């Protein structure tokens, strides 16, 4: 996988580069601000961009804004946003184009290397990976999605966190077959048009995150 990284902390940028190389991915460029990120994206056309939310010179939400601009140019460009904190507000903005291929994770999650790399690959493949913190605030909402059972909501939340059926089964202590059954039922209840499974999965997650 060919990756561009935008991260102003040299320490973290180095760590990410080494980590990606260890999993035999290619780091095309490491930049530390938003304008250079946009330039690198159009120059290298990477398969994935890993972007820090706060970048110089204003250190606010430049990363999010840059990514939104880049995706207007190249819809569906796979992006993983890293941040010290997550806000549903930003998750909503990132997902607004409903094109998927978005990840939004706390920087802490990099420490769990295997899960982090799995998330990267999910995003590059067009999936949606939301941080556990975003997902859990959604589950605590009183007005869940109409018609979904508690178990189905749990499965949907796990899908939003970017987990595979096998991983969901293991976490909820049910079989993979049961997971697949729940997912089919979710697709039906959310009235998602029949299409390939990966796309329906993305749409289901978007509906969940959009409530």
């Amino acid at each position, binding site marked *: 996988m060919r990756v561009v990284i935008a*991260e*102003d*902390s040299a320490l*973290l940028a180095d760590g990410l580069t080494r980590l990606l190389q260890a999993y035999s991915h290619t780091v095309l460029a490491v930049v530390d601000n938003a304008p250079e990120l946009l330039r690198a994206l159009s120059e290298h056309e990477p398969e994935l961009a890993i972007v*820090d*939310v*706060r970048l*110089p010179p*204003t*250190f*606010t*939400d430049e990363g999010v804004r840059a990514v939104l601009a880049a995706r207007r140019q190249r819809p569906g460009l796979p992006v993983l946003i*890293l*941040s*010290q*904190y997550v*806000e*549903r*507000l930003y998750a*909503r903005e990132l997902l607004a184009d409903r094109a998927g291929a978005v990840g939004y994770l*706390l*920087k*802490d999650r990099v*420490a*769990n290397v295997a899960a982090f790399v799995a998330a990267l690959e999910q995003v590059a493949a067009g999936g949606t990976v939301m941080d556990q913190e975003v997902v859990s*605030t959604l589950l*605590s*909402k*009183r*007005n869940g999605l109409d018609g979904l059972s508690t178990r189905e909501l749990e499965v949907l939340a796990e899908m939003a966190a970017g987990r595979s059926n096998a991983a969901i089964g293991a976490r909820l202590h049910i079989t993979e077959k049961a997971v697949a059954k729940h997912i089919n039922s979710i697709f039906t209840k959310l009235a998602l048009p029949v299409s390939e499974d990966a796309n329906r999965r993305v749409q289901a997650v978007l509906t969940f995150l959009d409530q």
Partner: protein
Amino acid sequence: MPISDRLKLRLVLLRDAGVHLVLAAFGLALFCLLVPSIVVVVVTVGIPLLAVELPALRGLAELHRRWVERFYGIELPSPYLPAPPTGNPIVRLAYQSRDPARWRDLAWLAYNSTLGLAVWILAFVYGLFAVIFWWLPPLPLQHLNAAVARALLSPNRGWYLSERVNALSRSRAGALDESASEIRRIERDLHDGAQAKLVSLGINLGLAEELLALDPDQARRLLTEARQTSGAALTELRELVRGIHPPVLADRGLVGAVQALALAAPLPVTVRASIDRRLPAPVESAAYFAVAELLTNVAKHAQAGQAAVAMELAGGRLRIQVSDDGVGGAGLSPDGGLRGVERRLSAFDGTLRVHSPAGGPTDVVMELPCALSLPKTARSSPTG
């Protein structure tokens, strides 16, 4: 106007004039006693006399203040300095002699015992005629006395300024207390939380380093534990930062941060805002935490189906209304959360009003002045 009503009105005017005539006569007697007492105060006999006369003057003046309040429909606070913390009559008298309000009372008494008395006599006599000869037009004689009383009995500018200083001293003391206890809380949280976790992280890593060659399995367990500890420390730091200054507030300002609050609330919250610029950072922060506290209250106590936040700038004031369709009955109890919000807003000269009848709905309106700054981007340390 029917004849009977007109008669009633004239009788009321006559009664008022009569009452004030008697009061003015009493005032004249008081004035005749007071002036000599002040003169002989140097030979000490004046002191016990004044100890009786001054309260009488104050009582008379207060009576007329209430009358001026009714007459003009205004509020006329008592302008006296607070009593000295001693029972010594000489000290008390010296203290009272430095109170400008007392001297203004005396000036008013001088007027009311002379010209004022004459006006009341005139008003009373004319009032008698007006009751009998109904075609006579009413004369606004009492207006003259009311105007003089209003001018002399109302607090002077110095009194209003000192009241303001008192209010500011109180709110500043409150704000200082608040920030001191906030800093203590942060120190405690860091000490017991993230700091302790980082120490244990260091120990685990050190042990793992030692064990790497001898017992790789044990070393791996320690490393896993270390990773979990670092995650927990980061979570705590994140919570702490959110409590001090939420990053989304720094990034997006008040409107964005309140939208983020609304999304995170456990019930549907709609946000309406007509603010197109960044407000001064302290105002943003105070308003944000006030809204956060109110929404928490709604979620905890109101049993509401939904809530709404409306924010607008009008005349240099930020007005925020938080309403819900819950059970109502919210109030400013002394130890309640609303009182705390009110206290914090008062440091900004802000106000909070609650309208929450039993059965709901609840409306809380906050207003705080804010000098607008130019739109600019916030600068903070690169925390990523």
